[in-house]
């Protein structure tokens, strides 16, 4: 396991192997091997692009749903969480401290589609006792990447 490589990939999953090698002072083969091992062992679970869908002309709506769940004997929240995670529309599932038990992020094409998913799929799961849906109106920052364009700061020419 190589934490330095992990940090580089987390910042930029498309960083070239040659550059990772230069920065970590390893050979390209060593870098490939390390990455492959970490992928196999599940430390690296995937590589995703950070897209600002608002700039794209396609409709996409996301919502954060707070679920209250009755845990099942012996399995706690695991069973429900794992079941919810299987839905393609579900982007993330997290077990929470505090008032709600699970937070689920769902993405769909329209408000209606997402609402129907909550009402017809999530709410009907046996152990789910209540749902509270909040729609995401606008994303400003995602995975550490700012999505807003900074204004010109009017600094003028800096020489030196």
């Amino acid at each position: 396991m190589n934490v330095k490589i992990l940090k580089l990939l987390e910042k930029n999953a498309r960083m070239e192997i040659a550059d990772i090698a230069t920065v970590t002072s390893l050979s390209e083969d060593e870098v490939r091997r390390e990455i492959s091992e970490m992928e196999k062992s599940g430390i690296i679970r995937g590589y995703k692009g950070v897209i600002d869908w608002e700039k794209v002309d396609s409709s996409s709506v996301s919502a954060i749903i707070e679920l209250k769940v009755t845990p099942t004997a012996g399995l706690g929240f695991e069973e429900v969480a794992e079941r919810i995670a299987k839905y393609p529309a579900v982007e993330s599932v997290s077990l929470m401290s505090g008032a709600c038990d699970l937070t689920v992020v769902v993405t769909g094409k329209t408000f209606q589609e997402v609402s129907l998913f909550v009402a017809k799929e999530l709410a009907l799961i046996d152990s789910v006792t209540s749902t509270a849906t909040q729609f995401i109106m606008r994303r400003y920052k995602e995975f550490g990447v700012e999505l807003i364009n900074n204004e010109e700061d009017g600094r003028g020419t800096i020489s030196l």
Partner: protein
Amino acid sequence: MIDYSKILAKTVVEIKPSGIRKFFDIANTMEDVISLGVGEPDFRTPWQIRSAGIRSLERGQTRYTSNRGLDALRQEISKYVERKYSVSYSPKSDILITVGGSEAIDAAIRAITNPGDEIIIPEPSYVCYEPMTRLAGGVPVIINTQAENEFKLTKEELLSAITDKTKALILPYPCNPTGAIMDECDLSAIAEVLRERDILVISDEIYAELTFGSKHVSIASIPGMRERTVMINGFSKTFSMTGWRLGYACGPAEIMKEITKIHQFAIMCAPTTSQYAATEALRACDEEVEKMKEEYDARRKIIVKGFCDIGLECREPKGAFYAFPSIKSTGMTSEEFCEKLLYAKKVALVPGTAFGESGEGFVRASYCYSVEHIKTALTRIAEFLRQI
């Protein structure tokens, strides 16, 4: 009609304007220019520091501080310098907080220079030392450091520049633009000469925290040197606080008294908000600095390898955030190379000659940019090299 050429101060008029300025004025009129020219961190000032500044504004702490600067800040500086560089300075009498390292250098030169005094300046180095020396009535004596010596200042070079008029040496390490550092050995060698010939040192250590693979050593920590050294440092580069304009000078009380006089009349005090913010920086931001340094190190490795891969000899810089590759293999002068590169491929590099004659045949590329930005620039430079 006023004839301004007759009324302005001769010394000032005779100082050549910075060569870099005209270059960037041109670059700024062009579109799609990839610059590796600016010598300023691209990181935002760490949030804790900004927050401390904002809090001080909210509390209405917007009035003058004492000339020397906030007590609390001078105490933190004293602790910091002791901890990092093993030199002791009393917060009360040995430390002055200035408007950037720039003001500290200027005031220090003015405090020690009598008309006609010679001030030794190793080059290639930052462009302010020569003009400041002239403005103070001093005579700059340039030493052309050599690539073969990794642009360090050697004992022999120093000896050959000393005359009976020599008052001080300006020691800019880690160095802009060469990225050179002087280790304990290098410093001890010149310290011997400086003590023997009774020469003062103005040590510009603004890049002290940006050293790679070794810890910065201040010449003030070498035996016998504290009493003759003004150590200058600041917050711009270490903490990404360039716009806050804050630096400091440390030295023997008698010298600091005179430097403070100049500061008192010309400046009053350094910006108050910046002083509050900087106090927090020294107290709590070691980790942030480490993170930025790691990022610089990654970019440093990439840019050096990048230049070597495209056929431009580039030694590994051990400090600051500049690479100084040689363009001698192209047969062009530094200025020619940079100008042609700018017009042909819209990449802005700074000609080495902007930093002194000994910079001829070199160009300065700063790595205060993202890896992607640096790689794009290198790709275009490679294309340019293939075309010529």
